[in-house]
């Protein structure tokens, strides 16, 4: 279970003035899990995302930077040393709004697969117990977040019954969320993969939705 005051799971088609998806994306959920426990030998797979709280939006406008530094410039500075490396506050400032989610709470239902790089010593048992220990203790590699790092996530392991979602049994708890980002395929030139997200009683069965079709 993860929760937080704000979240922003940015839609790739609205990246400049960020607009969040209605719910957490599977790739953001994977990010949360990896912040808690990850080794190159395993790969987290998100099975289900339970939307516990009503979906609410909020608008925030902030000063941001428009560009980023090029590697060529950094190299020049390393070579010659008389290059001014900084981002100018007055020149590169842009004001951008973000449409964020408020008061979110999700339960992530996931498993991991052992990826090809595993040695003889890699057992599911070992990784499973390590992940479990960390989640119980609240340990993490770095603090997990909900889409952007300024929206930190609190997390807890649920070992018993799942609490009921706000949308359980409600009419608006079953809806078509349209095409959502599933994840980025890093082995295939960072190609984004999309899926059609269907919410039923506040639960998005990611694997089932993916079986019904993905797009990339």
């Amino acid at each position, binding site marked *: 279970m993860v929760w937080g*005051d*704000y979240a922003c799971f940015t839609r790739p088609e609205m990246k400049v003035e960020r607009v969040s998806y209605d719910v957490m994306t599977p790739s953001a959920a994977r990010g949360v899990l990896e912040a808690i426990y990850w080794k190159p030998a395993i790969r987290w797979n998100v099975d289900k995302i339970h939307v516990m709280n009503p979906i*609410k939006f*909020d*608008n*925030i*406008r*902030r*000063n*941001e*930077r428009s560009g*980023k*530094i*090029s*590697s*060529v410039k*950094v*190299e020049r*500075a*390393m*070579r010659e*040393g*008389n*290059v*001014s*490396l*900084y*981002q*100018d*506050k*007055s*020149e590169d400032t842009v*004001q951008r*709004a973000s449409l964020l989610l*408020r008061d979110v709470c999700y339960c992530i239902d996931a498993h991991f697969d052992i990826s090809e790089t595993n040695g003889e010593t890699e057992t599911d048992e070992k990784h499973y117990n390590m992940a479990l220990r*960390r989640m119980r*203790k*609240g*340990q*993490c*590699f*770095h*603090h997990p*977040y909900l889409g952007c*790092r*300024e*929206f*930190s996530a*609190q*997390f*807890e392991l649920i070992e018993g019954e799942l609490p009921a979602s706000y949308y359980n049994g409600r009419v608006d708890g079953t809806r078509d969320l349209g095409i959502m980002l599933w994840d980025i395929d890093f082995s295939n030139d960072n190609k984004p993969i999309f899926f059609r997200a269907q919410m039923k009683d506040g639960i998005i069965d990611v694997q089932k939705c993916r079986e019904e079709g993905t797009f990339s």
Partner: protein
Amino acid sequence: MNEPIRNRYEFILLFDVENGNPNGDPDMGNMPRVDPQTGHGIVTDVCLKRKIRDYVDLVKDGQEGYNIYVKSGVVLNDQNKKAYVANGLEPTDKRQKPDVEAKLVQFMCQNFFDIRTFGAVMTTGVNCGQVRGPVQLSFARSMDPIFQQEVTITRRAVTNEKDADAGQTMGKKQVVPYGLYRAEGYISANLAKKTTGFSEDDLILLWDSLVNMFEHDHSASRGKMAARKLIVFKHENELGCCQSHILFGKVQTKRQPSELPPRSFEDYSITIDRDLPKGVELIEKL
């Protein structure tokens, strides 16, 4: 002390504002930011980070290793850069080889305090060219709903000739009479160790900047801002010993009973529950 840090930290910073605007909202004509659902004031993470950068820039004054990457158009003192040994890199297209990338990232981290601390987005690096820094700040919120006051002021001098007959022009100031804000932050020892090399010295400087950043940021719009409390939770290891929300819950702010809305820090009492989980140490920096 230049070793990367070895402990996970969480921290709570309480700061207040008196007759000033801690963080204006560009969508609301620079009125103090407010959460529309609760009326609580907000100060964004980037606003606080800016102050930390400015403070470090002021104290270190371009000292080697303490440059600031995101700053106003002040050109760096490049004298110290001359010392860098040429890496003999050939400029290539955007996708760099991992080993070259690592060099570039390392160079940037060594030179810039704010990249070591907060990370930066660069075209180097693998994951969209991001360097993730160990320090993570979230939005600061006020303890109580804030009252946004608009104060109209006059000016005797005029800028335009057409206003000359009027003899004066009117202006507006947006202030919060009083607000006590709470910011929460996290520091990951693993990212310090693996990526940016954020060191014990850097950590001391960060605490220092959190305590003093408002002292060097006075202006007509800010009013009286001050850091009031900085409470640090130090875990005995890199991964941490306990969930952060449990620790954040140990520090509670209470309103003193009063008929009137809060107007000073004395209107609040702060209680710290010192019964901590095993392996966590509480340090009051302020």
